[in-house]
C-alpha cells in the first residue's frame, strides 16, 4: 500500500465518522407531548410565545430565570423555565416565533437552556403601518379627527 492511499482511506473514514457523529449527536426538533415520553433527552421545540400567560421574571431573586408559556406546533401550551446567562430575553412578548432547547422535566415543566427568537419581519410591519397611516389620513381629511 502506498502512504498516500492509506492517508486517503483514513481521511474518508474520518469524514464518514464525522457525518455519523454529527447526526447522532444532534438534537431532534420535536413537540412537548413527544418530549414528555422522553424525559432526559435534550430536544428542540419550535413554537410561539403564549400571549395568554404573562412572563414571570424577578431579577432580584434570579436574573437568569425567566418563566413563560410556549405553544408548540401541535397547539399544546407548556410552562417553560428558561435559564439564560444573558438574562431575560428581550422582545419575548413581541416575538413571532421561538425555538427553545432543553429537557422536559418530570413535573411537566420544560427546562430550557437556550432560546432563539424571531421577531416580526419588516415586511408585515410595514404593510400594517402603511394601512394604519392611510386610514388615519383619510379620517383627518374627512374631518372625523383632528
Amino acid at each position, binding site marked *: 500500500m502506498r*502512504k498516500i492511499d492509506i492517508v486517503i482511506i483514513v481521511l474518508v473514514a474520518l469524514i464518514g465518522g464525522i457525518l455519523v457523529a454529527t447526526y447522532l449527536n*444532534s438534537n431532534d426538533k420535536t413537540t412537548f407531548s413527544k418530549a414528555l415520553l422522553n424525559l432526559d433527552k435534550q430536544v428542540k421545540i419550535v413554537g410561539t410565545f403564549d400571549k395568554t400567560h404573562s412572563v414571570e421574571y424577578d431579577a432580584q431573586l434570579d436574573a437568569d430565570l425567566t418563566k413563560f408559556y410556549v405553544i408548540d406546533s401541535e397547539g399544546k401550551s407548556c410552562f417553560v423555565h428558561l435559564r439564560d446567562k444573558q438574562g431575560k430575553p428581550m422582545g419575548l412578548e413581541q416575538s413571532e416565533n421561538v425555538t427553545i*432547547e432543553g429537557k422536559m422535566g418530570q413535573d411537566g415543566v420544560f427546562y430550557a437552556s437556550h432560546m432563539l427568537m424571531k421577531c416580526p*419581519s419588516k415586511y408585515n410591519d410595514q404593510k400594517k403601518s402603511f394601512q394604519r397611516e392611510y386610514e388615519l389620513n383619510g379620517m383627518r381629511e374627512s374631518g372625523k379627527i383632528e
Partner: protein
Amino acid sequence: MQEIQYLNENIWPGILGNFFVVLSFVAALYTAVAYYLATKHQGLENPWIKPARIGFYAHAVGVFGVIGTLLYILFNHLYEYKYAWDHLNNAMPMKYVFSCMWEGQEGSFLLWTFWHVVIGLFLLRTSKSWEPWVMSILALVQFFLASMLIGVYFGEFQFGSNPFLLLREHPSNIGLPWTLRPDYLSLQPFMDGKGLNPLLQNYWMTIHPPTLFLGFASTIIPFAYAIAGLWRKDFQGWMKPAIPYAFFGVMILGTGILMGGAWAYEALGFGGFWAWDPVENASLVPWLLLVAGAHLLVINQRKGTSVYASLLLNISSFIFVLYSTFLTRSGVLGDSFVHSFVDSGILAQLMVYLLFFTAWSTYLMVPNRRWQMGYAALSAVLLLLALGNLMTAPEVAAAEQEKLLPGEGTWVPVLTILFLLASFVMLIVGYRKYFRVPQEEEEELWSREFWMFIGALILILSSVHITVVTSVNVGNILLAPFEGMFASLHQSTDWEVFKRLADHQFSAPADKERFDVYHRIQVPLAFLLFIIVAIGQFLKYKKTEFKKFAGSIALALFVSIGITALIGWAVEVEAAELSLILLVWACVFAMVANADYAWRVIKGKFDLMGASVAHLGFAMVILGAVISTWQSHFISKNQRGNISELNEDFKNNEDMMIFMGDTLPMGEYFVHYKEKTKRGERVYCTVEYFEKLPKTFKEGEYVQVFGQPFRAKKTHVATESFLTDATEDSLWTEVTPAEVDAHSAEELALWTPGTPGERLFVLEPSVLMSPKGNSREPSTQHFLGHDLYTFIKHTDVEEKKADEEGYLEPKTAIVDLQTDIRLTEVISMRIDSLVEIDSLPENLPEGLIGKKAFAVITDGKQVENVMIPMIWLQDSVPFPYPVESKQFKMLFALNQKPEGLELTVQKHSSSERDMLILTAEVFPQINVLWIGCLVMVIGTVMAIRHRYKISRGKV
C-alpha cells in the same frame, strides 16, 4: 386607466440606475463571450482582446454607476426608493451612509461585484498570457452576480432584486390605497425611512463588510486561474502566477473573519469573539480551503506534485463562498439561525449559480471528451427534470408550506443527490485516470511536502466538519426523499436511529453544547495542524535525514515544553482540561519553532522570513483564542445570599446586583453605580471602577456579615474572603447581638475586603432600544494582559408609570399569616393577625362587615405598625381599602381570595431605587490574539511580496 402623475418623485436616478444595471449585465455577458473568442487565437496580438477589454471597462462603468446612483439616492434621502426607505432615516449621521448601502441584500451583492471589478481591472493588466481565459471566467461570474440586481418578475418567480425599485412598485405595496395618491410622498410614513438597525451603527459595520467581501472576492483569482488551467489543459502553468493572489486572499479573508470576531466581541455581546455562528462558519470554511490550496501551490512549485489537490482546493474555495452565500442568504437554515433572510426567489437563483459552477468545475476536472459529454448531458437532464417538476407542481397551501422544509415534496432533493453523486464519480474518475501520481514518484515520509500535504488534509477535514454541522438543515432536506425507506427499516428493526432518520428533524445544538460539538473535533485537528506548522519548515523538500531534523527541532521542542509547563503551573490545569493544555503546547511549539527557524536557519533574511512570521502570527491567534476562552472567569459574584440553593441544577452566581449610588467590592475593584442616562437610542449605565485598598481591622472591631455580628480577635489586614479570615486564620469570633449593643451604639458596618481608593476607569454598558427589539451592548476595559468585559444582565429601561401621587403600579401576591414577606431588598412585612372588626366607622352604610389585619413593617432599623382593613357587604366580594405606610411610603390593601389572602402593594416612586444586574468577565491574554493577527498579516505581506517577485521572474 389614467396614468397617475406622482408629485415630488425624483424618477431620473432610478432610470439612470436601471440603465447602469442593464449595462453591467449586458457588458459582462459580452466580455465573457469576447474573451472566449479571444482564447481561440494565439497570443495577445489577436483581434478579440481589445473589444473584450472595452467590454470589461463598460461593465466597470456599469457597476460603478450603479453604486454612484445608489449613493446619490441615499445621500439625498430619496425615500420614494424602497432601498433608501428600508435602510436609511433622517436622524442618522451621514457617516453611516456606506453601512446603509451594504446592509441590504442588493447592496452586499453590489459590494462583492465591486471588488470583482477592481480585481478584474488589475488582472487585465497583469495576467499577460492568461488574460483571455481568466477574464472570461471572471466576466462570467460577474454576469451571474449582475443578474442578481436585475429584478424582473416571471409570474411568481423573481429574477434578481433591484435596488432602484420604487416603494410604491414593490409587490407588497401594489394595490394599497396610498399608492394611488399622487401626493403620497407628503404622507407622514414616507417623510422618513426606517433606518439602519442601530446595532449596526458603528465603525465595525463600516470596515468589516468591505474587508470580508474583498476576501470573498479574492477567492475568484485562484479559482479563475485553476479553471483556466483546466480549460487550456495546462494543469500546472497557472500555479506560479496564482500563488501571490492565493496568499493575498488568505490574508484579506483571514483579516475579515477576525474583524467579524472582534465586532461580535466588542459590540454585539456574543460573550466571546467566536460563537461558531453559521455566518462566521460561512466565512471560515472558504478560508481554510484557501489556506490548504495556497500551500499546495507552494509544494507544486518545488516538486511538481499535488496537481489534483491544488486544483480541487483552489476551485472549492470559491465554490464554498457561493455555498456559504446560499446557506446564509436563502433561509435554508430556518429556525436554527437568527439572521436568516427569507426571499425565496433568490434561493432558486443562488442555487442555480452554485450548481452551475460546481458542474462546470467538475466537468473540467476530467479532461476526456466522452466523460465530459456524458456528465454534461446528465446534468442537463437533471436540471430539466427539476424545472419541469417545479413548474407542474401543485400549489401548496401557505399554511402547509410553512411546516415543510424548502424543496420538500418536490423532486429537487432527489435530483440534487443524483447530481452530487455524478459529480463525485467524475472527480474520482478524473483523479484515477488523469492525475494519479505514478508509483515510483512517491513522497518520502520525512519530507516537507508530505507533511504539508497532511496539513492540507487536516484543513479539509476541519472544513468538512464545520460544513456538515452548519448544514444539518440541508441534510434534513436531502433525507426527505428517503422518509418511507427509513420508516420501514425502523418497523423491521425497531432501531431508534432509523426513526430519527425517517423524521429527519435533526438540528445542531446551540450555546454551550454547540461549542462541544465543534471543539470535540476541531481541538484535536488544530493540535495536529500546529505540530505540522512547527516542524514543517525544518523538514527539507524531497528527503530529510531524520537525525539531522531531530537535532534541529529539539531546541524548540524543549523550550515549548518548558513554557507550557510554566503556563500549566500558573493556571492549575485539571485533568479534564488535558486536551486544552496540549493545544496550548502545540501553539507554543509552533511559535517557538518558527521564530527559531527565522533566527537560526534563515538568519533573519527579510525576503525569506514571511512564512515563518505568518505562521508565528497564526499560532498566536489560536493561542490567544484558547487561553482567553479557557481561562475566562467572572469577577462579578452573586451576593444575594446563597441563591444556588433555590435550584440544585442551576447555579446562578455570575452576576452582581447593585443599586444606584451604592459602592460594592468586585474582584480587585470597588464598583460604584453612578447613573443611568439615555443618549440617543441607548440607555447607558455608568459604572465607576475604584482601586481596592487593603483594609485593616483593629482588635475588638465589630462588623456584620449577613446580619450576624462578629468581633475581630486581633488587628489584621483583610483578605479577599471573610470565610478564609474567620475559619482558616480564626481572626473573627461570632458574638451575640446583645454584646454589640453593649459595646457600640452605632450601626455595624458590613465587612468588606478593602476600601475604595482612587477612581481608575469608567465603563458604560448599555441597552439599545429599538422598535426591532432591544439588545444589550457590552462595555470593555482593555489592559495589556487581559480584558474586563461587562454586560448588563438586567435593568429597567422603561420609565415606570406612577399615579398623580407618585405611587407605582400595584403588585399582588397571595400571602400567609405570620411569615416574613419581602417587599424590597431591605424592607419586609409580617401580618401577625387577622381579626373581625367589632365596630365600623359611623359614616359608612349599613350592612358592612369586615376584618382587620395587624401588620409590622420594618427595614431592620425602624418599625411601623399598620392596620389594614378588609370590608365587604354581606354576601358579596370584599373591596380593597388601601392603607398608607407613612414611614416607608407604600400603599397596602388586603383581599380575601379563594386561594388565600391577597396582598396588594404599591411602592412609591421615590422609594424605588434603580437596580442594575451586571456581569463582569475577565478574558486573559486576549491581546495575544490581536497581536497575532497583526503579525500574521505582516508575515503574509512579506511572503506575498517574495512570491510576487518570483512569479515575475525577479528572484
